[in-house]
């Protein structure tokens, strides 16, 4: 079971709670987690990554275990703590405000 935390605007769009629990078949990678997320919440398609290229939208980041995974290969295994559900996988919007 993978725990995913979305920024509030995407939680609202998906109609999801603060933390989403996903069953991800096979090895947990960023790609497989996001595939499972979009499968369950089709409204999120295109809001985190491009629907065709699957590239991350430029003003979003992916964090886990206090590490920035944004530029890691999408097929690379996620940390064990994320794969076991001990730590969440965070989709984070770039800071705004001022």
């Amino acid at each position, binding site marked *: 079971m993978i725990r995913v935390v979305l920024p509030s*605007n995407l939680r*609202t769009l998906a109609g999801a709670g603060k933390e989403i629990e996903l069953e991800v078949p096979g090895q947990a990678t960023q790609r497989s987690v996001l595939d499972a997320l979009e499968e369950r919440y089709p409204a999120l398609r295109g*809001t985190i990554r491009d629907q*065709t290229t699957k590239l991350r939208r430029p003003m979003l980041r992916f964090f886990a275990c206090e590490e920035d995974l944004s530029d890691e290969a999408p097929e690379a295994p996620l940390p064990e703590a994320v794969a076991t559900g001990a730590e969440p996988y965070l989709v984070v*919007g770039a800071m*705004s405000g001022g």
Partner: protein
Amino acid sequence: MAPGWPWYEHRGTRMSKVRLLVGTRKGAFVMTSDGKRESWDVQGPHFAGWEIYHMNASPADPNRLYASQSSSWFGQVMQRSDDGGQTWAAVGNQFQYEGEAGTHKWYDGSPHPWAFARVWHLEPSLSDPDTVYAGVEDAALFRTVDGGQSWQELPGVRTHATGPSWQPGAGGLCLHTILIDPGNPDRLFIAISAAGAFRSEDAGQTWRPINRGLKSEGIPDPNAEVGHCVHRLAAHPSRPEVLFMQKHWDVMRSDDAGDSWQEISGNLPTDFGFAIDVHAHEPETIYVVPITSDSHHFVPDGKLRVYRSRSGGNEWEPLTKGLPQSDCYVNVLRDAMAVDDLDSCGVYFGTSGGQVYASADAGDSWSAIVHDLPPVVSVEVQTLP
């Protein structure tokens, strides 16, 4: 634009309700009132935190609404309501250019790849609730025929021979205006900042520029075929060959479906502006909101004044009753004015200061429906039975 188009043929039947669709920088609002238009019910924000560039309703099914929801962070989302805005569901949001996207000119004149950014304007078909045109940035025209589940480009706009020379206006290279000729739905008019106005006679397959008579000092050839920063087009449904235009500077008129244009700025205090619209029952009565200049995007002299011409242009009168006449420095954007179809034509507009003003007497007097919304991007109105 005038959402009175769909109901034009039914004018004279008793209309008793209006519904405003207001898009803001931080969400959408739906406002309803009876035919008196004195007290309003305000619902929202829908899609809180998101930019709502435009909402519009199907003329064929007034409960069918579409909304363009976007964000610099999360991209484009399309929303649809089948119950007049009470509930919404996300529909298809993939806008993919057909074939090679090609390049247009960037601000510095260099070639820049065409890239989808957002949907600026939605124009539902006059007869089919599932068919909607979408004008997007970077400039292109899309259409859905399945109620928004999928969107296909009509590439004749973007691939026009002049496309590689188009440059964005300050707001981006946006296709922001779509007019459908009610007597001939194959005839479409669009406008792009900063390419100009275009007309199609074949339902959007092919396009020709219709900019003869425009003069723009900010481009190398002021009389060029394309390159003009057209801010908005408007027309009355009974005379779709008569077009009115608010250009970057200049208010213009065409009596031949855009083949030629004449300036009608007349006695306006400034002819810079964004919004323009036409009275629902008087095709020669038009409205603009003059803005100080392209470097001062606020109303002149601290006074919020709508200007009305009852002669199709050139002679304009300020409409000020109920509008702030001191210390006001708001803007009114291109899609933020609309007219209803009641016997006494209602006029509405929203401001960058978050006010939405309504006039139930064709502009003679105004009152604010709301004062403190996020900056208003778009206003449409439905006249309902």
